[in-house]
């Protein structure tokens, strides 16, 4: 019979660039929040605890994208001391909404546009180091498990996390939002000439938006089986320009969409 180790695993919840919504989502689980703090030894939780030093963790849960050198250094340190690394939320997994896929030059242009001639952030903002284009954590370190979502849903996060703290391997089975959309018994926007990114978006939200009669904009990030060329054709068929279609795909699809469109 299933029984986990007596010793509770040590867990750290770390946050980089993002809205911190995924950390908040954990605190927001209400019925399960107390269990969250008792089922594992939470040694570090950016949002919930004042700073603590941790020499090593069994499970590191990392939120947010990386966009300064200092973050990159910290990220690598976390990888060094962690047994398992989990990317939490669409920003950590794919770069998130702040991922623009810019090269250095274009990025500098943008900085100038926002911060004036020098293109440097004012000194008082330089707490975390000068910014560079946002990138998902997997661009820099090995990530063992991805739990996308903007923010992550309890239903998606808990079963994966509880397996990890029980020393078990979570099941990896990529599905698009459309599967959950059909579980919910919804009709399909695409059949009525309306926009929807369900077929290229990772499931996990229980098809929240289509079930409320709102199109999916892809906030759970990319679905591993996504067929972008066919999706773009479909979006063109319902009246989007190719440019608009790609822009919409990139909004939450981050580096994965970028790579797919380049044919990598």
């Amino acid at each position, binding site marked *: 019979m299933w029984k986990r180790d007596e010793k509770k695993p040590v867990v750290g919840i770390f946050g980089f660039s993002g809205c911190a919504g995924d950390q908040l989502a954990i605190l927001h689980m209400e019925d399960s929040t107390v269990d969250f703090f008792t089922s594992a030894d939470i040694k570090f939780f950016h949002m919930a605890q004042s700073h603590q030093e941790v020499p090593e963790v069994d499970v590191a849960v990392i939120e947010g994208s990386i966009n300064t050198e200092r973050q990159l250094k910290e990220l690598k340190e976390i990888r060094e001391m962690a047994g398992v690394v989990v990317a939490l939320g669409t920003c950590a997994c794919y770069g998130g909404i702040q991922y623009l896929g810019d090269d250095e030059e274009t990025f500098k242009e943008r900085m100038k546009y926002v911060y004036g001639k020098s293109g440097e952030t004012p000194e008082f903002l330089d707490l975390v180091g000068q910014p560079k284009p946002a990138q998902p954590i997997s661009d820099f370190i090995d990530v063992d498990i991805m739990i996308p979502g903007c923010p992550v849903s309890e239903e998606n996060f808990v079963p994966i996390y509880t397996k990890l703290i029980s020393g078990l391997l979570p099941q990896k089975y990529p*599905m698009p939002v459309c599967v959950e959309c059909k579980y919910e018994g919804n009709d399909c926007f695409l059949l009525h000439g309306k926009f929807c990114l*369900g077929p290229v978006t990772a499931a996990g939200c229980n098809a929240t938006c289509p079930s409320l009669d709102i199109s999916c904009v892809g906030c759970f990030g990319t679905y591993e089986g996504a*067929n972008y060329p066919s999706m773009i054709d479909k979006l063109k068929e319902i009246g989007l320009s190719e440019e608009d279609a790609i822009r919409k795909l990139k909004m939450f699809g981050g580096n994965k969409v970028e790579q797919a469109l380049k044919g990598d």
Partner: protein
Amino acid sequence: MKTYKMPKNVFPDFIELIKTKGKLFGPVKQKSKYSFEEIKNLQELDFDYQRTIMGVKKFLTPPKYKTLTFDKEGTKDIIDEPETNIVIGVHPCDIHAVKILDRLFLGNIKDPYYASKRENLIIIGHSCLPDDKCLCQSTGTDMVEDGFDLFLTELADNYLVWVGSDKGLSLTIAAGELLTEEISDEDIQEYVRWQQKRSSMFKTVMPSFKYMADIITLNYDSEAWEQFGEKCLSCGTCSLVCPTCNCFNVDDKILMNAEGGFRERMLDSCTLPYYSMVAGDHDFRPDRTTRLKLYYTHKLKEYIGRWGQPGCVGCGRCVTYCPVDINVITVSEALFGEVCETKEVCE
């Protein structure tokens, strides 16, 4: 099989009676689609429909459900409480689909979860008229002789009520005076005329369907698969809405307290990327083309080899719901058309 007649004006009383026997579900219009939903009042029932988004499988092998719970003490099966569900308005194709599911889940190895759901389901069929997406005439599932408890054929002023099981018979006994055994010659004529009209209404007739299994075998390396594979979004819709598709996945989920959890079953689809992945990360069907080929070869060829009948009952759901027009009609036509062209066998 006994047959009765029920005047339409007593139908509301019949529904009231049925509702005393269990929870009643039937076709309900929801904006742009129909769905089998619980019927609270008669006005919600809408028999003027072609297809619901999900077939009767939603009652028998639901999209997602718990099959057991576990904790430190052990495991506990969750087999449904014996509550009777009654679904009314089921078309012949969907009844055939249930017969296929029964064969799979109640064969040599009985699935206890399915069995208890099936035992507690009463199916009341209803006659229908086809649209251009219905192909049940070609799949040979436009008529039903069994697989239902009662079947209602709608005529101008009456229903003909066909009894298909002991449970159905009990319902007719309970219905008492609402039904009569007196079916006149005019009624029979009206019924025959109605059947003839229905038969002539099928716009999608595919004679090639009868030997599609052979076409698939002979044209196994068809280029059509590649073309469909390029378009397919791997979205899973086709198999989720198909009333005979029944593959499921199982996952054990641990609760946040890490002291217990539950086992969950959810509908799967062979169009999804890891469907054919086995231990050691070996994936037999890593691309969309081979996965679609599996879907259609299984449905239109393997089923026939095993049971003498395709796994498609012609309900037209894949025809309606695939966003990129890959469905049993377009696939069959492409495979057949290709044979025609290259082998010069057709006119």
